[in-house]
């Protein structure tokens, strides 16, 4: 009984001791993670290593589980011997030694491979983290925790260990500890892939209450961990420093009292006075505002505005010239209109400065610039400038009509009309450059003048004769009428004194622009030439604008035959050209120009005749003699004021002999008559009667005479 009681008491003692040791192991006691080496000669099953598992037990062959954690090695050996005694007889030589000590811990949180890891007996937190695959991006290093087996939780600053290398800053690891690596609050509540560099740039403040918030015109605004002793300079540098938009003299700091204080960084940097540095409380907010331009005024200030590189207010000294000031402002930009720089005086008066002229060395003096003046460099008006209002009327000329780009152009008096027309795209193909009209404006009056650009371009001449253009003038380049048939509106704009009139049988009769340099053939060609039915031998030109009236006749056919220009009349603007039809009224043809062919021909009528022709041509033209014509007695009557006569032409005899001497002369104005055979018979009868009667009368006269005798 006493043995049983002793055994139970021992067992209770052992159990209590085991539990107590597991909770709070004594120095030198066995722990979870220890590896025991059990030796028993001749027993191969025992001669190996037995680890103390996470429950504090070792598992022996044929003896089962033996709780050893928390016991000393002697106690553990006794327990093992006791357990083995049921299976083995001779345990005298049983040896139990601690071969190796290991620390099994669990690493959770922001590590790459969370889970159980086994460390050597002297392993620390860093080794545990490495064994767990290392810390993940976004881990909060200064707020890691260790939860011991007894539930006690310890927070530690791993970053501090990394900063210092001091192992004492890390808690000592015990078996079954749980290391937890928290996430930084900056990672937010959404799991996303992020760039650690970007994340770190926005600050490292893990503790919201103590972190310093820096924003505004700094390089990397963010929340940064508060460190005691850090100055505002350290914090601003941590935030990437101030940028060039910042106002370093207006930095605001809101401390724990909630009231903003202004820190003048500029003053500190200028003086180096450390007393100017404010005390930064944990959780402070620092704001670097944007620089706001200050309105600068002063007795020596000159203002430069507009298209310069650095507009602003400039302090002048006595003797500072216009060029000095413009140069200090960085000079005109490429958009500046340097011909129209204005100086605005304090009394409101303005003065124009033509910098280009000055640079050209044309003797222009630059005005003096005094304090209080403002220099305005206006924007240049390029071709595509939408606002034409920027150019004052006194500096603009208007180009209208047949130019490439009609419009309103900026003007400078040293330019010429050629510059202007070139800038306006030049005259178009239909421009009448011989009549460029310039409307000159003098005060309230406008006076037109004409300029023959065509003549000047062709013939040259003194440049003094080229009209001077000034701002406000209007230049009109008229158009040549294109086709009077299709565009009557266009030729209505053409002055009558510049026109010539073409009527009758031409392709496009009408009114055409004409100048003294053009000729008869020019205008005839412009009117598309004579039509097929035109009578080119009898073209009439009425010369107007002369004293009295004069009409000349043009034989264009003769011109084409000889090519002699003297046959072409001199025409001038205002003249009228008439090309008659070939089938015109016979009244239009004077008798002196035709030969009348009468009688027995195919087509009796009036035929135009030239001395190149002969009666044979006439007969052929008139359709030839008819069948009953008396071809041997064709009568030709030569009419003349001085001498008229009638002659016979024996066509048959001529045809038989070919004797040209038998051909009678025919001239324009003559008559050709072909009697028919009926008339011949009647003539023969009357002739016979006449002969008979004549013979009878002669006989009677003779008889009467004989009776008288």
């Amino acid at each position, binding site marked *: 009984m006493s043995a049983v009681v002793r055994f139970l008491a021992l067992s209770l003692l052992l159990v209590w001791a085991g539990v107590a040791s597991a909770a709070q192991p004594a120095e030198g006691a066995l722990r979870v993670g220890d590896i025991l080496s059990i030796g028993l000669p001749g027993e191969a099953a025992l001669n190996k290593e037995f680890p103390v598992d996470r429950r504090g037990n070792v598992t022996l062959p044929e003896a089962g589980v033996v709780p050893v954690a928390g016991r000393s090695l002697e106690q553990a050996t006794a327990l093992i011997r006791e357990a083995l005694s049921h299976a083995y007889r001779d345990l005298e030589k049983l040896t139990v030694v601690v071969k190796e000590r290991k620390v099994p811990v669990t690493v959770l949180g922001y590590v790459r491979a969370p889970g159980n890891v086994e460390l050597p007996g002297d392993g620390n937190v860093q080794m545990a983290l490495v064994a767990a695959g290392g810390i993940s991006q976004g881990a909060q290093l200064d707020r890691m925790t260790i939860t011991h087996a007894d539930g006690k939780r310890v927070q530690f600053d791993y970053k501090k260990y990394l900063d210092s290398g001091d192992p004492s800053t890390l808690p000592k690891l015990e078996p079954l500890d749980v290391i937890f690596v928290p996430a930084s609050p900056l990672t937010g509540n959404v799991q996303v892939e992020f760039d650690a560099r970007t994340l770190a740039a926005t600050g490292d403040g893990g503790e919201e209450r103590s972190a310093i918030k820096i924003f505004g015109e700094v390089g990397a605004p963010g929340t940064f961990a508060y460190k005691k002793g850090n100055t505002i300079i350290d914090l601003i540098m941590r935030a990437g420093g101030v940028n060039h938009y910042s106002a370093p003299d207006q930095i605001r700091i809101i401390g724990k009292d909630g009231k903003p204080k202004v820190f003048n960084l500029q003053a500190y940097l200028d003086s180096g006075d450390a007393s100017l540095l404010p005390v930064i409380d944990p959780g402070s907010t620092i704001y670097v505002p944007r620089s706001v331009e200050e309105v600068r005024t002063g007795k020596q200030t000159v203002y430069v505005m507009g298209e310069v590189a650095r507009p602003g207010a400039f302090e002048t000294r006595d003797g500072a010239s216009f060029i000095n000031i413009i140069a200090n402002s960085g000079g005109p930009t490429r958009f500046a209109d340097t011909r129209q720089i204005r100086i605005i005086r304090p009394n409101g008066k303005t003065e124009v400065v033509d910098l280009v002229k000055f640079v050209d060395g044309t003797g222009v003096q630059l005005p003096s610039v005094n304090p209080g003046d403002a220099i305005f460099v206006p924007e240049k008006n390029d071709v595509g400038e939408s606002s034409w209002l920027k150019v004052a009327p006194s500096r603009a000329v208007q180009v209208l009509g047949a130019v490439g780009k009609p419009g309103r152009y900026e003007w400078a008096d040293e330019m010429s009309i050629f510059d202007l027309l070139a800038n306006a795209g030049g005259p178009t193909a239909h421009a009448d450059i011989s009549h460029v009209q310039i409307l000159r404006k003098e005060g309230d009056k406008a006076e037109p003048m004409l300029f023959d650009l065509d003549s000047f371009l062709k013939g040259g001449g003194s440049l003094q004769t080229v009209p001077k253009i000034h701002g406000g003038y209007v230049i009109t380049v008229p158009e040549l009428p294109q086709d009077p048939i299709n565009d009557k509106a266009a030729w209505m704009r053409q002055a009558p004194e510049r026109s010539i009139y073409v009527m009758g049988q031409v392709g496009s009769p009408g009114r055409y622009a004409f100048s003294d340099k053009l000729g008869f053939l020019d205008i005839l060609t412009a009117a598309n030439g004579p039509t097929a039915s035109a009578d080119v031998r009898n073209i009439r030109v009425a010369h107007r604008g002369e004293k009295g009236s004069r009409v000349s006749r043009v034989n264009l056919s003769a011109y084409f035959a000889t090519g002699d220009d003297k046959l072409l009349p001199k025409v001038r603007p205002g003249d009228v050209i008439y090309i008659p039809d070939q089938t015109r009224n016979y009244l239009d043809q004077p008798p002196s120009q035709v030969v009348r062919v009468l009688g027995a021909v195919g087509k009796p009528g009036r035929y135009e005749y030239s001395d190149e022709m002969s009666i044979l041509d006439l007969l052929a033209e008139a359709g030839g003699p008819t069948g009953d014509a008396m071809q041997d007695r064709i009568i030709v009557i030569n009419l003349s004021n001085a001498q008229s006569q009638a002659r016979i032409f024996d066509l048959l005899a001529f045809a038989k002999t070919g004797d*040209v001497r038998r051909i009678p002369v025919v001239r324009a104005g003559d008559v050709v008559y072909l009697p028919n055979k009926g008339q011949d018979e009647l003539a023969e009868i009357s002739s016979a009667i006449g002969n008979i009667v004549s013979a009878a009368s002669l006989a009677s006269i003779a008889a009467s005479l004989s009776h008288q005798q």
Partner: protein
Amino acid sequence: MRKIAGMLACLGLSGCFFSEGPWPVEGAGGFAEYLPITDKQLENLSNRLEALRARGAERYAAAAFAEASLLLTRSRREVAAGLMLDANRDIERLEGQVEAMEANLGRMRVSAWFDRDIS
């Protein structure tokens, strides 16, 4: 009997009036330019015209030369046809034209020579 003879005589004379008379004589001169020139003055003018042609009148005074040639033809025809009054008038005109051409042609030739030299 006398009365009868007188009446017949009247009838016979009236027969002359009753008929239209004989046909005109045959004409000539229509192609006189193909025949030799018989008129001395015309021959002279024709030679002068030919001389003008040799001097290039056909080129330098084409219209005037053509007109003069026609006038020569007309004059020759009229002379051949016996229309002497008309012929004299035309010969006069022809002479004037030939003289004008002779005067002008010298100037034209000179200026044409200068043009050629300059070009």
